[in-house]
């Protein structure tokens, strides 16, 4: 349907069509409102946590979060220590993955705080559905999703260091070969702002960021960056990065430009840190978590590690810092050999591994060649949460990703999953 997502190992083709399933996934408005409150609570705590880590580290001093974990975190950026981003927000855009178990409870499976992608598919899926099944939208009261680009723009504009009518907001992409390039283009287009590459930007002697235009240099206020931390600025991180902008961190630390999400925000999107989110919520907000975590065993704890190794054939084992489903072992579906290989990796670096029970994941019906699939397919849901510090907004629904193979638990687009439109339905509306 005109949507593409690049997969890195498909030869020289840089685009691949992404399967779209036409049967929508429905969630009641009442239930969704509960989820929304839970997500807002969660991102608020996560932002407080990140800000704390880069300042006083009270949560460590108070013994709630182990110091050893932070020391080994690959996403902690010492370059960010002491920096105060506007409104103390680090993770402006958060994509949390939700799953539902057999009993119907929604769990948070993970939080994506670096550069979560997929929102353009949520928007495109809805527009396809509206074109193909207009009559359904007459009969059912389905909450709209198309306001997202405006909300995103408003949030970005609110981060501008120069209060003015029209701040210069840009989307920074690694370029056409990135898997989510379609989305970078799409969002830039929808927000009516420039899509820039690193080479379009320059940090001048005044420590401000400028873009090179036909009419000369033009100041940039807010950068929605879709480049990973380590490639952002060759002066601060990887010196041979061609994608970034030399001096960008300098400009950001002086408050001359806003970076969204802030560098270093990824420290909280580690699968071991994830296990501590309920404690964080209690610590910072004095509340119980409204959305549950999937029970998680941390291999850094020798007892839990033992349990994981003994029960590896029953668990889903994940490396802490990979995304996109790479490096994942699904116990019940794996061979003895694969299990042994993973055990060896766990023993080599226990800090880097967590395990979760294979939930009796709920399924959703999908349409395949022979008709509607009996038993359905496993699915997850990724809502996006926008935080400006003054205001937090959650997408109505989000992106439903669905495994396209019977029994498969992996829904990632980079692993061959598909997607669905997600309807938040107002049951009471007439």
């Amino acid at each position, binding site marked *: 349907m005109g949507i593409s997502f690049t997969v890195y190992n498909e030869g020289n083709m840089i685009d691949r069509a992404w399967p779209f399933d036409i049967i929508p996934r429905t969630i009641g408005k009442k239930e969704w409102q509960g989820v929304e409150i839970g997500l807002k609570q969660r991102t608020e705590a996560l932002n407080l946590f990140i800000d704390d880590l880069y300042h006083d580290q009270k949560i460590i001093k108070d013994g709630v979060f182990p110091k050893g974990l932070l020391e080994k975190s690959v996403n902690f950026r010492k370059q960010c220590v002491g920096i105060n981003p506007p409104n103390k927000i680090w993770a402006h855009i958060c994509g949390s993955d939700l799953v539902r178990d057999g009993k119907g409870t929604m769990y948070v499976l993970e939080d994506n705080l670096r550069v979560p992608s997929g929102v353009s598919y949520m928007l495109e899926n809805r527009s396809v559905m509206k074109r193909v099944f207009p009559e359904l939208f007459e009969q059912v009261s389905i909450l709209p999703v198309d306001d997202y680009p405006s909300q995103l723009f408003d949030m970005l504009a609110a981060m501008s260091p120069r209060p003015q009518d029209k701040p210069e907001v840009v989307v920074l992409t690694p*370029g*056409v070969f990135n898997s989510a390039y379609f989305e*970078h*283009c*799409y969002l*830039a*287009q929808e927000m009516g702002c*420039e*899509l*820039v*590459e690193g*080479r*379009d930007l320059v940090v001048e002697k005044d420590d401000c960021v400028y*873009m*090179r*235009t*036909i*009419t*000369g240099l033009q100041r940039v206020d807010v950068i929605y960056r879709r480049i990973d931390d380590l490639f952002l600025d060759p002066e601060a991180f990887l010196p041979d990065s061609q994608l970034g902008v030399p001096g960008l961190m300098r400009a950001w630390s002086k408050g001359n430009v806003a970076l969204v999400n802030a560098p270093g925000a990824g420290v909280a999107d580690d699968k071991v840190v994830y296990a501590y989110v309920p404690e964080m919520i209690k610590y910072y907000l004095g509340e119980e978590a409204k959305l549950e975590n999937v029970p998680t065993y941390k291999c850094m704890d020798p007892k839990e590690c033992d349990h994981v190794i003994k029960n590896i054939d029953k668990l889903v084992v994940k490396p802490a810092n990979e995304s996109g489903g790479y490096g994942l072992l699904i116990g019940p579906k794996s061979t003895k050999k694969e299990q042994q290989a993973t055990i060896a990796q766990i023993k080599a670096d226990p800090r880097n591994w967590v395990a979760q029970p294979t939930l009796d994941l709920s399924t959703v019906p999908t349409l395949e060649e022979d008709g509607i699939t009996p038993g359905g397919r496993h699915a997850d849901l990724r809502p996006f949460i926008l935080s400006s510090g003054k205001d937090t907004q959650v997408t109505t629904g989000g992106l439903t990703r669905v495994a396209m193979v019977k029994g498969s638990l992996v829904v990632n687009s980079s692993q061959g999953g598909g997607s669905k439109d997600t309807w938040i339905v107002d049951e009471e509306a007439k």
Partner: protein
Amino acid sequence: MLSRVGETLYWMSRYIERAENVARLINVNNMLMMDLPKGVSTGWEPLVDIIGARESYQETHTDFSEPKALRYLLVGKDNFSSILNSIISARESARTIRDVIPRDIWEEINTLYYYVKDNQNEGLSKRGRFAYLKAIIDAAHQIFGALDATINHDLGYTFIRLGLMIERADMTSRILDIRSENLIISEEAKPFENIQWISLLRSLSAYQMYRQEMGVRVQRSDVIEFVMHSDVFPRSIMYCLGQMKALISPLPNSAEIITSIDKAIDELKAGDVRSLEKGYLHEYIDEIQIKLAGIHNDLAELYFLKPAE
């Protein structure tokens, strides 16, 4: 407008114009060869010369036979200016600025790419060739038409037009150069001289407009005058230069380029092209081509993204 985006729009437009010109050249040459007696035709060799690829062609080819030369011109992977490669380059350019160009335009360029790639056997066959090339020419016209009608006529559009005009002027000068140099003027071919000039005009889709404007029999001096100097024919070199000047004038810091364009225009006006004989005409056109390359360099220097130091 980002410098990189301006530059990419410029090249996207140049590549599409180039593909369209090559398609037209092949089509017209094809028709001409059917009219010329056996043994008189110049074959496909001049077309390889027009795109300036003689040396690289000869590295991999032993002769200019129809199947070899055609494959090279249409889809040759080793030919940077083959129709397929031009379309690939245009598509790659468009892809990196998809946020700037209207979605329909991207889809048209993409469709053209698949058409050129998937139907190449039609283009290589004698029967399918005309329709294949015509479809490419039509698609190029449609893309430029749609651009004109749907994109903001702002700085970006200026660069689209600049790319189009400079490529067009360049192709016109090349076609005129090689075609007039290669014209067969032997006793035997005398009766066919006329159709060769007509064919030159057709290569520039100039035949009908020539007739309207010049109103005389097709003859060498008038043809050269028309495709070089006409103020009204959109493919004449003079017309393209005039357009470029008008496009560039509102841009910042453009005084220098305007001077270069003025020089090219003066050079063009000064020559009494009607009386230039073989050889001299070639040198004269060479000068103009150097001026065109200079204008491109000035543009790149002033407005395009510089490679990292």
